[in-house]
């Protein structure tokens, strides 16, 4: 690097960087050595704009604010697709566009604030947000996952929501991965798995927020890049959503102390994970749920007393991003003093205080008349708080440290980063024939699939999360003494209303075509929600992808985003919030592209919710939807180590008609039990309904609506838009009437003490309930 570009200023604690004399290679070097993760184009934009030297506090502000994590440059940038097509932003052209066109009156605030807000009833709003914490969890599993939970809870607090439920979806490498195949620097999946689960349980349980929904996947595509999705749902009275920061309001920082933990968390999240992960530990924050619990109490009190004019959480970028965003959002400027910040250790450099991502902190804007009251509320709850600064009309971000200005930036420029341009190739899965001889013994196949790590009961994990705390969980993740897997959870958030919030997930990472994978995930989230009686469903999208600067990764991202538009629109379910985690690369290559869709529905009366377990001997069992020969990415093939086959597709019309009819049947009281058909097909879904009830079932594959001519395919294909429905014996005619026009057929009868399958050629297979349970749970009985 050219000499004198980075200069320590005598007598002060800042360093000055003179970009005006820097050449391209110097710019790249500065970005790298200071941990900015800015591209050469972005560094050049800075050089062009500033003839004066920038302080380290200033240049770090750009590093944080312009990071992938904070402004989603890939999703907001321009994409040039192979063949000459140009996309003016994935977010704008696809995901937000569907929401805009659907134009639902119940969408209250979408894609704007820390969390999406929809109407619950006339007086209340539901807030929802899902985040990822992949990189931190790969480096320090317990702390990474726990702070992921803590962070998303603060997103809900950041829209004045009272958190009522947590969601956690996790993807790991195979737990039995041979140690010798693990590249140097990566941690073994088992270590990550144990730490992540302990971290999630610890934070959610401590905070007293029930963890009610989630999923766990295992695949070699997650060895180098484990995936940790943390979600939170909250509720708030409508009139209390206040975001009205005014000139003269004070900025109050409250909660945990600021330290060296979590320095450069966002820039680390915006680059590949290529070095020895232990060296990155300091970038992971340290969790302390006790502090956040007190903070939550104080914030809800401040909300209810209407003492503050605005709020935001401190996440990526720490104080720098929270103050800048709050000022910018309100068209204001702000002056901040770093001297008043409560520190974990005394000698932090100003830039460290400025960008540290230490946990459990929130920023509030408070009118002068309420400042004393706000500080008193914090004191009453034993929460440390300081008056960080004051909002003004300057449109500048000015920061003081020991009497000196260490940062003075124009907000207009800070929030107009150069738009990223990404290139994408066309990515599409071309089906190859799948050479799979038809097995003779489908009972054996079923037991093998039930014991597959991706299908097996996750009870061991789920019961370490408190899903009953708050006493509002109407439908639990595990049903009854026998722990059947309910498709969605229901929370009854209000004392005086029977209405419930229905929370579901859709995630199908093994389907090889990015477009149909995204379509199936959306449809699955809706289907799971419908299974328990949820309707009026809003969606959240969370993309976990590899490096978007590579054309193939970008190509599949484009396809997935296209499906988001197409199916959100066609299935009448708007997106309300989302987040992307890109740059999930390791020495083993990119992460398996994974899209989590979270569904937030409502149910008018939680007492009418439908659960998974079979109810009554003699009731008929129906299959809704069409079963096709769609085995690509199915657990059936995957568990045999096979590829090929057709990818499950979604027929939006059939899907929509089916869910609408099913809800109608549920509301008419005709449905005794319901389960969505997903991983493992009809075989697994039916077995789960049997195990959850200790009631047998026989099904006849000849009656399954389908054009497939093989029993194994009928039993294990993962075609979308299907449900298994136990109909009350006396209600069959009414049910059939409602289902007119929707593919459906009676396929079985509840009864006996085994699961019996009749194949196409007349062969029959029978498995005892206890045998099923041994395969699926490892033990019989509770």
């Amino acid at each position: 690097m050219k000499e004198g570009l980075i200069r320590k200023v005598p007598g002060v604690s800042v360093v000055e960087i003179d970009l005006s004399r820097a050449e391209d290679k110097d710019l790249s070097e500065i970005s790298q050595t200071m941990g900015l993760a800015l591209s050469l184009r972005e560094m050049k934009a800075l050089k062009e704009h500033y003839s004066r030297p920038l302080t380290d506090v200033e240049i770090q502000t750009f590093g944080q604010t312009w990071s992938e994590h904070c402004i989603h440059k890939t999703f907001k940038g321009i994409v040039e697709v192979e063949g000459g097509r140009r996309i003016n932003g994935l977010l704008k052209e696809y995901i937000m566009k569907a929401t805009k066109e659907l134009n639902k009156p119940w969408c209250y605030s979408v894609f704007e604030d820390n969390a999406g807000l929809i109407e619950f009833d006339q007086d209340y709003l539901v807030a929802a947000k899902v985040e990822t914490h992949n990189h931190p969890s790969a480096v320090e599993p317990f702390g990474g996952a726990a702070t992921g939970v803590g962070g998303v809870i603060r997103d809900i607090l950041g829209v004045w929501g009272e958190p009522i439920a947590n969601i956690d979806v996790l993807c790991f490498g195979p737990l039995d991965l041979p140690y010798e195949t693990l590249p140097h620097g990566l941690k073994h999946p088992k270590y990550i798995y144990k730490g992540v689960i302990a971290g999630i349980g610890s934070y959610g349980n401590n905070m007293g927020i029930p963890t009610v929904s989630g999923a766990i996947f295992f695949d070699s595509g997650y060895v180098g890049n484990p995936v940790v999705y943390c979600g939170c749902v909250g509720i708030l009275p409508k009139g209390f959503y206040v975001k009205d920061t005014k000139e003269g309001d004070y900025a109050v920082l409250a909660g945990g102390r600021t330290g060296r933990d979590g320095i450069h968390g966002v820039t680390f999240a915006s680059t590949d994970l290529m070095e020895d992960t232990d060296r990155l530990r300091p970038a992971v924050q340290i969790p302390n749920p006790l502090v956040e619990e007190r903070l939550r109490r104080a914030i809800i009190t401040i909300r209810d007393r209407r003492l503050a004019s605005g709020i935001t959480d401190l996440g990526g970028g720490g104080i720098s991003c929270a103050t800048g965003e709050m000022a910018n959002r309100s068209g204001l400027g702000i002056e901040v003093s770093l001297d008043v910040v409560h520190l974990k250790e005394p000698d932090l450099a100003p830039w460290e205080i400025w960008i540290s991502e230490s946990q459990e902190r929130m920023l509030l804007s408070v009118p002068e008349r309420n400042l004393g009251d706000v500080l008193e509320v914090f004191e009453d709850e034993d929460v440390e708080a300081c008056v960080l600064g004051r909002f003004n009309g300057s449109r500048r971000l000015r920061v003081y440290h020991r009497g000196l200005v260490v940062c003075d930036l124009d907000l207009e420029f800070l929030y107009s980063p150069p738009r990223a341009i990404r290139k994408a190739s066309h990515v599409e899965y071309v089906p190859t024939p799948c050479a799979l001889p038809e097995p003779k013994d489908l009972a054996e196949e079923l037991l093998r699939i039930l014991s597959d790590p991706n299908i097996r009961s996750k009870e061991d994990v789920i019961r370490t999360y408190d899903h009953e705390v708050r006493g509002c969980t109407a439908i639990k993740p595990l049903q009854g003494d026998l722990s059947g897997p309910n498709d969605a959870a229901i929370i009854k958030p209000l004392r005086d209303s029977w209405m419930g919030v229905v929370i579901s997930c859709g995630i199908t990472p093994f389907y090889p075509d990015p477009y149909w994978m995204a379509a199936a995930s959306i449809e699955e989230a809706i289907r799971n929600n419908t299974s328990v009686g949820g309707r009026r469903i809003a969606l959240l999208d969370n993309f976990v992808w590899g490096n978007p600067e590579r054309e193939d990764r970008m190509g599949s991202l484009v396809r997935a985003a296209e499906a988001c538009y197409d199916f959100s629109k066609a299935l009448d379910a708007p997106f309300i919030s989302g987040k992307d985690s890109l740059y999930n690369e390791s020495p083993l290559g990119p992460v398996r592209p994974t899209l989590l869709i979270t569904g937030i529905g409502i149910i008018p009366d939680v007492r009418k919710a439908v659960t998974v377990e079979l109810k009554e001997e003699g009731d008929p069992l129906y299959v809704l939807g069409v079963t096709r020969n769609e085995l690509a990415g199915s657990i059936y093939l995957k568990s045999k180590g096979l590829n090929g086959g057709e990818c499950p597709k979604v027929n939006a019309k059939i899907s929509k008609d089916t869910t609408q009819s099913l809800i109608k049947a549920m509301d008419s009281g005709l449905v005794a039990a319901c389960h969505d058909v997903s991983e493992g097909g009809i075989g697994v879904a039916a077995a789960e309904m049997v195990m959850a009830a200790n009631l047998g079932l026989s099904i006849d594959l000849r009656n399954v609506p389908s054009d497939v001519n093989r029993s194994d395919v009928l039993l294990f294909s993962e075609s979308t838009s299907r449900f298994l429905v136990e109909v009350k014996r006396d209600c069959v005619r009414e049910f059939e009437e409602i289902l007119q026009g929707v593919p459906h057929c009676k396929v079985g009868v509840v009864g006996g003490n085994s699961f019996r399958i009749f194949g196409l050629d007349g062969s029959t297979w029978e498995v005892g309930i206890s045998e099923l349970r041994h395969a699926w749970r490892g033990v019989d009985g509770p």
Partner: protein
Amino acid sequence: MDLSRAKACIARVGGTNCDLEMKVALENLGLTAEVLHMKQILKRGLSEYQLFVLPGGFSYGDYVRAGAIWGKEVHSKIKSELEAFIDEEKLVMGVCNGFQVMIEAGILPNGELVEVPKAALANNMSAKYECRWVYLRVERGGTPFTGDLETGEILKIPVGHGEGRFIPASEDFLKELIEEGCVLFRYSMPSGEAAEGRYPYNPNGSVYDIAGICNRKGNVMGMMPHPERAFFGWQLPEERNVPYGDGKRIFQGIIKYLQKY
């Protein structure tokens, strides 16, 4: 006394998180219930209340040991106040973390605030947090907390804890507890026979399947399971179309007692 004049104090500190559902349960039965931070209790005292509840949660983050810090705070700051409260035969109830606090403060097993606890609530035998519904057998009906229950009845109520394994100081002390009717609830099989340590019916490995205990008079009670989470029918995992769950029976007992108090 007239129920409209009776009042419950639900105590909390940082980390307490089951206070609101406790309030909902008590208020549903017509009792006035106030959630008070320890700071407020220190200022106001307990004289205006007839029921003192230590609810569940992770008081002070459960650092050191579950309930240890709050237990010491109770012992050092409101010992005499609480002893007088107990002497007046008012009711003290601890659920989950509240039970842990009572043990750490020495309030239970004896109903007097002793220096060295005579029992412990240790880490679950399964070495993990356990959130599940369990069956409880009522070992002694007719006490202030079981006034609406008969000996031998079976209740279905959930637990949610990592440290709930009841261990008495000695075999003799256990015998004493049993003989004096201080064992109030035991984990049992659905049929009603004792769980005898069988997991997960006994979810934590408690000695003698102990889920809840009381003092001799029965006006001081602690239990690991959460009756406030099994209060309404819609909270139950099965048979949800009933108005109330088994947890209500315990609160019903409290109400009966207060009406006679």
